[in-house]
Structures are given as C-alpha cells and as structure tokens.
C-alpha cells in the first residue's frame, strides 16, 4: 500500500474546526467588538463580527433633545476625533436653519478638524504598533498627541469631548497665544512624521506583517462602501473634502493620498501621509485666517427649523461621516441618522477574514481603524 493510499484509507484524518471567541474584551479589538472565528488549523473558515456592545441609542436620544443638546451627543460617536462629529451635525442643522457660519468660524472649523485628524491618526499609529507587536511607537505617538490635546484644552477646555463647534460657528475665538503655540507645535511636529517612518513604517518586521496582508481591491472597497483611508488605501480617489467641499476646503491646496494595492500597510501609510497633508492645510488656514466674528447672528437659543430634510457629510478621520436630519418644525430633530464610516468599514471583515491566517486577524482589524462608539452609536 502506498503512502497516499494509506492516508486516503483513514477516513477521519481531518482536524476539527475550533471556535475562537475574540472579544468583547480583548486588548486589540479597540473597544468592545466581538468576532466569532471558526478556525481550521491556522486558517479562518468563518468570521462573524458581533457588534452592539456599545449601542447607546444616540439616534433615539436625539429625538428628545434640542439641537444644541445634540451636539453634546455627537462628541461621543467617534471619541478619538470629535471635532468632525460636531461639525457634521452643525452643518446639517445649519442647512435646516438656513444659517451660514462666518468666514472666521469656517476657517477655525477646518483647522480644528485637521488637528483632530492628526491626533486621531497618531492614536492609530500608536495602537496599530501595539497590535503588531511594537510598543515603542505608542509612547512617541502619544507624546505628540498630548500636545494637540493641550491645544484643544487651551481653546475649549476639554481634552476629548470638545463641543467646540456649535450651530452657527464655534464656541470661542482663538487667542494670539494659542496661534503662537500652534505654530510652535507645527514646526516641532513636521520632522516627527519622518521619525515615525523610520521607527515603524519602514521597519522590516512591521512591513513583513502588514504588506500584502488583508488585500482589499478597489471594486470590493466600493461595493462594501468603505470610506476614508480604507477606501483610499485601495487606490480609489474619493475624499469628501474634494468631492463635496464644505467650510471652504476648496480654497486650500492639499493632495488626496491613495495607496496602491489595498494592503494593511497601504492603509497605514495613507494615514501617516494624511498627517502631512493635514499639517499643510493647518498652515494654510493659519496664513490666511480671516478676521471677524466666530458666531453667526440669528441662531436662536431654542432653534426650531422649518420642516424639511438635510444631509451633510464631512471627511472625518475615519471616513465619510454623514448626518441625515429630518425636522418637523419642533424643538428636537424628528429623526437623526448617522452614516458612520466605522460601521461600514467593519462590515467587510466578515468576508475578508475568511481564508486568512489567525495571526493576521489583528493586523487587518487594526488597519481598519474602527472606533466602536461610532460603529454602535
């Protein structure tokens, strides 16, 4: 009997499938995500993401709160980058109210959102390093992140949940000391991005773990409605700042960063390069910061917009964040729907994880850069 025949003769020479429960408490799921993995040996045969562990019912709560109160709720969707959340709700509500923010408020909004994008991507660089096994970038990235949080704290008093962008403008104007400190930070920060490249981006171990792993083609990315760096990492040029400009983004000169093949490394590197672009935008805003008031006149204490519908979307740190508001003329939104980029970016996992090695799960999961507050809302 040949050896092949011997193997064929044993009917049950097949490893059993094993169910591995990843989360909801797992240091690398970035929150309370649970993924039910069925593995055969090292290979995943089925992956079922289970979300809702942070479902706080924001959309329902908004229906019993005033428009100004809803801005507070928006802070807590994507708590790593709250400024774009404030902004997108305010843009939608301003469309309903027929209010337009002042030029200086628009410039400040752009500046804060871009600074917050840098802070958010820094957190990603740090935590993705930890996911892959490099602890040091976390310490460096948080060092710079704390400086941005200091700037935010100086201007609005909060480190994480800002409630800075309000209906009709922003909360307060920035002071000359603040702009001086921001310039100082930008000069400090620019060479640091090259440092991250040396430390992590071109680290051979990191590249081996992430390049060619978790490939998402452009067609898949579009079909799954990915957005932000996840979409651009696959080579699709789409950025809400260019496609549907808001707050005067059309006046600033910046590039849309795209990746080549849609691997984990491409998505990672898109974010690192986006930080450079954000610095460019902040510098341009600083150079031509218009004078004037920061709050538009005519925003009521209790706004009651005329019945209607509005949709606004911005390019948040994680992708295309949208808010669909319906007003019946009352003091609260009749309906608020959040088009959460993390929610859609996460959905692709159930398909992409199948066939991957179990050691690559965290590499792919980390590279999508989800925030569970936004996934579950």
């Amino acid at each position, binding site marked *: 009997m040949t050896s092949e025949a011997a193997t064929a003769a044993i009917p049950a020479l097949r490893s059993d499938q094993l169910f591995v429960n990843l989360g909801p408490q797992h240091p690398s799921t970035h929150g309370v995500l649970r993924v039910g993995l069925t593995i055969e040996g090292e290979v995943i045969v089925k992956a079922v993401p289970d*979300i*809702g562990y942070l*479902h706080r*019912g924001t*959309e*329902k*709560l908004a*229906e*019993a709160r005033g428009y100004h109160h809803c801005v507070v709720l928006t802070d807590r969707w994507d708590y790593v980058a709250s400024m774009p959340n404030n902004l997108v709700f305010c843009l939608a509500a301003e*469309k*309903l109210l027929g209010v337009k923010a002042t030029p200086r408020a628009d410039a400040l909004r752009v500046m804060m959102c871009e600074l917050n994008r840098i802070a958010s991507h820094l957190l990603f660089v740090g935590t993705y390093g930890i996911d892959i096994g490099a602890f040091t970038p976390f310490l460096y990235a948080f060092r710079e992140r704390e400086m941005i949080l200091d700037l935010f704290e100086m201007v609005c008093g909060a480190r994480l949940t800002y409630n800075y962008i309000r209906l009709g403008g922003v909360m307060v104007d920035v002071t000359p000391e603040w702009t001086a400190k921001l310039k100082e930070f930008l000069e400090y920060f620019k060479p640091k991005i090259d440092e991250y490249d040396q430390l992590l981006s071109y680290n051979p171990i990191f590249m081996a773990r992430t390049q060619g792993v978790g490939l998402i083609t452009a067609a*898949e990315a*579009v*079909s*799954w*409605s990915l957005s932000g760096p996840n979409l651009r990492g696959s080579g*699709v*040029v*789409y950025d809400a700042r260019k*496609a*549907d400009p808001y707050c005067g983004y059309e006046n600033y000169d910046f590039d849309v960063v795209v990746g080549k093949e849609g691997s984990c490394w491409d998505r990672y590197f898109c974010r690192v390069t986006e930080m450079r672009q954000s610095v460019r935008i902040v510098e341009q805003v600083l150079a031509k910061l218009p004078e004037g008031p920061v709050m538009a006149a005519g925003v009521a204490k209790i706004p009651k917009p005329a*019945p*209607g*519908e*509005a*949709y606004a*979307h911005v390019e948040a740190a994680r992708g*295309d964040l*949208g808010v*669909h508001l*319906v007003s*019946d*003329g*009352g003091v*609260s939104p*009749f*309906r608020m*729907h959040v*088009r959460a980029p993390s*929610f*859609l970016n*996460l*959905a*692709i996992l159930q*398909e992409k994880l199948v066939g991957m090695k179990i050691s690559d799960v965290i590499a792919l999961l980390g590279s999508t850069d989800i925030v569970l507050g936004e996934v*579950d*809302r």
Partner: protein
Amino acid sequence: MTQDELLAKMQKKFPKAAKTAVQVKDYLTVSLPSKDDLIPVAAWLKKEGFDYLDMLTAVDYLGPVDMKGYIRQANFNVFLPEGAAPQAESAAVAGYAYRPVLELVWAFVSMKDKARIFVKLEVPRDAARAPSLSGLFKSADWQEREVFDLFGVVYDGHPNLTKILTPDFLQGHPLRKDYVHIKDRYDE
C-alpha cells in the same frame, strides 16, 4: 451632470419616479411608486456610475416620539411642586402632516461625477417590507440589518436578517415613534 439632467435621464427610463415634495437640501431626491421598482432602479443607478451605496435608513412619520421609550421620570424638573402635571417634552407640531408610514431612504453616490441621489420609498408601518439590495451592494448587508433591528423593516432576500445592535432581550424596535420601553432585568 446637474440634478435636472439626472432626473430627466432617470424619468426617461422610469417614468413613474418623481421628484419628492420635500427634497433633501442640496441633493436630488426621487420617490419610487412601489417597492417592485427598487431593484431595477438600483441596478440602473449602479450601471450609470452610482455604484457606491452611501447610506440606507428609514424615517417613521407616525408622530412625535413617545416619551415612554425613554427611561425617565415623568417630571424631572426638581423645582416644580410634588404631584405637578408631567411636562410633555415631545409635542406634535401643529400643521405638520404626520402619517402612519415608514419612509425608507437610500443614498447613492457616483464618485466619477461627484453626484449624489436620494431614493425614497414609503411602506406601511404594519407591513414594512422592501426588497434587499444586498445582492447589488455588499454594504447593504449590515445597514439593512440595522434598519431591521431599529425599525422592524423586513428586507426580502437578505441572507442574514438578524438583530445587530440591540441586545437579544430588548423587545420592539426602538426607533419607531411609538416604541415603549419594557423594563428588563437591568432597569430598576
């Protein structure tokens, strides 16, 4: 492509698709006469370059939200005397046409043309059914599950229409306007 051109092009193919009375501000909004038109319209839009399903949601137009859906004291104003009449916080707005329908909303984006179109379909509240777009757009999968979970809209042809956000023991569909919260073991 301007909004009017897109609408004309669409009405040439689907004469029954009409511009809605209430437009989503700044974007073209069309309503579909029946749910049978949804799949052909979506397939046509996908062919025309609107291959990015941006958003999928629903709106319940029954009336003002029922405050029993929130876990609140009826009167949380501590300055009022004891036994004061509960302050209604959510009141019907006079003159607004509330109606017992669920309006389903889809938003399609054409990345090439940088255009966006909203498609709407009204379904009755008690028999909320619509065809699933998950065969055309993969991203419809989770979004339809979300609408099913929060509104109770059944999407025919969805491969795995189960709860996604709310816990298993939660009864009802929280985002419906008449949702009343039933106390569970975690509420005192």
